[in-house]
């Protein structure tokens, strides 16, 4: 069977980038004056908190903890969303200290306060493309650690 190369495209440019370590990092903005952070990155150089023109681009580490999460059982209205339903959705606090909305990799054991890490995964297929999104999943290094300790 012919192996057709599928092209992966991000759901929106400028949300994340791959680094030399092959790990994806969310892209944001930070205010040099007051320290406030924004996601996604701001194209307008204007801090919404202190109102100074002092934003710089930053990359977030991609680690954090999930604050609360819910499972969405209904198709979102409006036809904007083309991914699978149900899906897990919540708020992640990144280690840098910013709260962001994110889908979470479906895992019935994931709970509030758990450590999570960012991944880039397929949200849906469109024509010959895989449309990719960022999500967060349980921090694999920690989970392996727990298992090792338990044995």
């Amino acid at each position: 069977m012919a192996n057709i190369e599928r092209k992966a495209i991000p759901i929106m440019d400028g949300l994340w980038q791959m680094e030399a370590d092959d790990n994806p990092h969310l892209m944001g903005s930070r205010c040099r004056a007051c320290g406030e952070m924004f996601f996604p990155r701001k194209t307008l150089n204007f801090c919404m908190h202190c109102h100074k023109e002092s934003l710089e681009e930053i990359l977030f580490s991609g680690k954090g903890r999930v604050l609360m999460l819910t499972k969405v059982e209904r198709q979102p209205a409006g036809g904007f969303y083309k991914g699978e339903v149900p899906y897990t959705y919540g708020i992640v606090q990144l280690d840098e200290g910013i709260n962001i909305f994110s889908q979470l990799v479906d895992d019935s054991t994931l709970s509030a306060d758990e450590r999570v890490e960012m991944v880039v995964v397929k949200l849906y297929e469109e024509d010959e493309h895989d449309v990719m999104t960022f999500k967060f999943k349980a921090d694999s290094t920690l989970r392996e650690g727990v298992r090792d300790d338990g044995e």
Partner: protein
Amino acid sequence: MMVNNAQWKDVYVQGTYTTKWGFFPGVSTSSMGAEAIVAALKDAQIKWGEVDAVFAGSVYQGTASGHRVVGEVGFTGIPIVNVENACSSGATAFRLAYDSIRLGQYKTVLAIGFEKMPRGPIPSTAFPSWQLAMGFNVQPANYALETMEYMHQYGATVEDFARVSVKNRRNGSLNPNARFQKDVTVEEVLQSAMVASPLRLLNCCPLADGAVAMILTNKPTNDRAIRVASSVLASGVYGEESYQSGITASVHHYPSEGIVEKSAREAYEKAGCGPEDIHVVQAYDSMGPGELWDIEKLGFCARGAAPELLREGVFDLTGSLPVNTDGGLLSRGHPLGATALAQIHEIVLQLRGEAGHRQVSDPKVGLAHAMGAGPNSAVTILQR
């Protein structure tokens, strides 16, 4: 900065009317709105030609929708201003009408809210496009996150949230205009379909079509007129979460006062009263749990205390602070552009003593609170 001016006029609600709320296929938005206008004029005992301006709230009705409604009644050359402010559209139209009279621009103004709702969960576009594509615009899911935060902070339970639905559906059973006029039990709420954990179908308000029209004036001509003590709109406080608008909290710069607290404080200040002076409340219950934290943020009790007061019956029709006497959004339904004006309508009826089987005992001051995506928070205080 707020200033006081002795020239400012007193403003009264002279007439008000709501259509029945439900699904009315074949009935156009304009004819629903026009029905409300003609009936409100009759209630106010004034003529259409006496109205100086129209502020028309709607969300999904498209360009110049207020003109289409007014066109059914007949153009008279007066200005028509269309107002879209998500779930606060009706209260925003009311506030503009109130201000225009208070500042002496007009004598008699019509505020109207109307909506025919798209079917299914509300397709809010109050989100950036990437959040829509990622499925972040499901309002019950956004409320679910806020609900879990509330449960975590104050120990509220799903039974507490179910009791809000039980109370409001009981009140709605006494409201002939509500979409749902049938009681539910705690068990029925807890067994209804899961929408976004922990919120179930009966924790969520239903959609509906409906229209409300209200005549405001500075020269009341009958003793049924109700004085508007204050009408305040706050739209967004930096750093506060508004999950319904796709906004998370700032971790390092959380505000000392939230949007609801700010709008309530300003409304009390302008009205010259406090939460202890309010006898009847329409709170924002698009999702049952929201009513509980709304009551707290409006200053009626300490944060986290509302679930216990609800259990004690304080917010019942016979309690010391009846809340959502017409059944709230949970019974009445939620036509976005009309909802916030319907809350004010119910306060007017209660203060007039015209609320029928759901009339509470001799209220003199009432408060209506609408909020929603944007974010917006609109507080209106009315006084007999």
